[in-house]
């Protein structure tokens, strides 16, 4: 294990009134690696995500992000849009949140808002059509085109995002997150609702993002084939606490994990495993 962590979650707790959604959770995500956060329904995975991306303010604990240049940021002190803007953490949503009435291309252009705002001189240079703005806009369109090509939606660039098939919408949301040029990409169940072929394409896309862009990825996933295939490191949660962590192979054989998923206790799980093999 190298000590190069892009994200370190330290003793994170999140309470909603009397309900403890996340309890004293600590884990790290390595740079340029894919970390998966798994667990049964209601384990608190999405809550952890919302804490990392600033949609929730954690009750206690620290979330540290270290950029490639060594610049460290405390995420729990920033609010949502600043986490995306300054800390360069991009996310997708469990229930897809595209801009349905805008075209696929426009969705990717909105993602480049902050860079384009600077290029348009806070709108004033853009309003008079300054040449520097025109080149910046073309560059943004080119970046969007590259991503549309990578997710295989180039020929549907001018279609409304809401009109795309479900699987395409999932990939478009990932492309939109990538257009913000993030250091850490957080994906909330990217394979949910995809068929086997689409999940395989998704795995390929995520592996290529890691290889080509060097983006670190943190994902929540229920589709074990995707998790086992692409993750470098797996963190398992149940009832708001971490119950196991390690390589996919290590996790697959952990009786505690199986017990959590089957909803039984450990001894039974071991019995099930042994009878199965």
């Amino acid at each position, binding site marked *: 294990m190298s000590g190069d962590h892009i994200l370190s979650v330290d003793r994170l707790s999140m309470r909603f009134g009397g309900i403890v959604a996340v309890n004293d959770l600590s884990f790290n995500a390595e740079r340029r690696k894919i970390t998966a956060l798994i667990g049964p329904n209601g384990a608190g995975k999405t809550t952890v995500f919302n804490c990392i*991306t600033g*949609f929730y303010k954690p009750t206690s604990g620290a979330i540290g992000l270290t950029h490639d240049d060594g610049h460290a940021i405390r995420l729990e002190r920033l609010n*949502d*849009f*600043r*986490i*995306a*803007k300054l800390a360069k953490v*991009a*996310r997708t*949503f469990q229930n897809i*949140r*595209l*801009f*349905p*009435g*805008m*075209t696929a*291309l*426009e969705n990717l*252009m*909105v*993602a*480049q*808002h*902050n860079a*384009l*705002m600077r290029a*348009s001189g806070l*709108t004033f240079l*853009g*309003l008079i059509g300054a040449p520097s703005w025109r080149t910046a806009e073309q560059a943004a*369109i080119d970046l969007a*085109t590259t991503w549309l090509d990578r997710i295989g939606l*180039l*020929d549907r*660039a*001018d*279609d*409304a995002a*809401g*009109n795309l098939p479900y699987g395409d919408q999932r990939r478009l949301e990932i492309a*939109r*997150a990538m257009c*913000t040029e993030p250091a850490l990409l957080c994906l909330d169940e990217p394979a949910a609702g995809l068929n086997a072929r689409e999940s395989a394409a998704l795995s390929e896309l995520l592996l290529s993002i890691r290889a080509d862009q060097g983006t670190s990825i943190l994902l929540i996933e229920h589709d074990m084939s995707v998790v086992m295939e692409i993750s470098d490191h797996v963190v398992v949660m149940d009832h708001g606490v971490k119950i196991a962590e390690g390589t996919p192979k290590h996790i697959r054989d952990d009786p505690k994990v199986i017990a959590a998923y089957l909803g039984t206790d450990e001894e039974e799980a071991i019995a099930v495993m042994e009878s199965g093999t």
Partner: protein
Amino acid sequence: MSANPAAQTSRAPSAAFILKKSLISALVALVLFSLMIGVRTEAGPDGQLTYWTRFGDLAVMVAAVFGGSILIELFRQWWGPVDTARVVPAPVQNALAFGGRLVAPVLLVFTFLVPVLFYNERYILDLAILVLTYVMLGWGLNVVVGLAGLLDLGYVAFYAVGAYSYALLATNFGLSFWICLPLAGILAAFWGVLLGFPVLRLRGDYLAIVTLAFGEIIRLVLINWQSLTGGPNGVTGIPRPTLFGIPLTPADDGLAAMLGIEFSPTHRIVFLFYIILALALLTNWVTIRLRRLPIGRAWEALREDEVACRALGINTTTTKLTAFATGAMFGGLAGAFFATRQGFISPESFTFHESALVLAIVVLGGMGSQLGVALAALAMIGGFELFRGLDQYRMLVFGMAMVLLMIWRPRGLIGHRAPTVFLQRKEAISSDLVKEGHG
């Protein structure tokens, strides 16, 4: 007997159905009209209540409703099912689409020619100026409601701020219209930001209520701050605009005298017409440009999904504030024009009715559509004048026309959205996909 027994059987129960429906309509009419028409009350000579019955009239009304609903139902049956093949053939549809593309340019050219065509018809020129004022207001509010999806019921506040800014600056400091115009815009934008700060945490209905209150507050301040605004008496003697310092008056230094032509009061009307046309076109141009800039796309993205916006690092607060400020600025410019055109303003001109009218124009036009807003302003202001001959039924007919239009086109006259950027083809997006925004 019939060659089509299936149709026969399907029609058989419909007779009973029509009868039942018409009976229900007649019953509702009976209940409603029994008091409204059946009993006539009046104050007698000594102030006591006298009444008499008019059962004959009541029977006629109920019978008319019964017969009318039978006719309507029969008409619907004859018209046939709506959702089968389109009645309009493809070539006609293409021709209509082609015609649709020509609407905007033709309308623009016609607008430019209005003073030439109707030079001697003062009424039409005044009406055209009024319509253009509302086109401009509609386009201004369209930024807030149509693009950013923020429901603003107090838009008239910015109109009032613009009007009073010009009126007070001109009457107290003698500044010219052309200096005051940008100042009025800036002041209105400033008020837009001021309103925006506390309000933009609110969403949907709550936002609408607070903006409504803001509109009323501005009006009440104008009424009660007598020392500054003159209270209910308003501000009088607001100077007319000049053409580069040359007044349009019959005086020796007036434009007519300088050009050596005979003075006519119509000159000033035509001048005003072109000022408001230029202002409206400026509003349109800026809005179209802004839509293609990151700020405009952020407004539309905000209308589509605010949470996703924040996840992409967009500062939603400043984005909303810029939308409010931009819309308010255009409202302020229109207000300054209103003040200079009227020469007199009072708080009475800035009631909630104005906000509602401008909002209706935006909604009727199709939220976010520039052409739609222009057409809606023409229909609302111009159409309202058309019904003037109907006297007290004007509101009734007008309301009915609006209801019918909203049934026919629930998303407004122009119910689709044009993308701001495209790779291969520019294709309108159906309004079914476009969100209205909720905050």
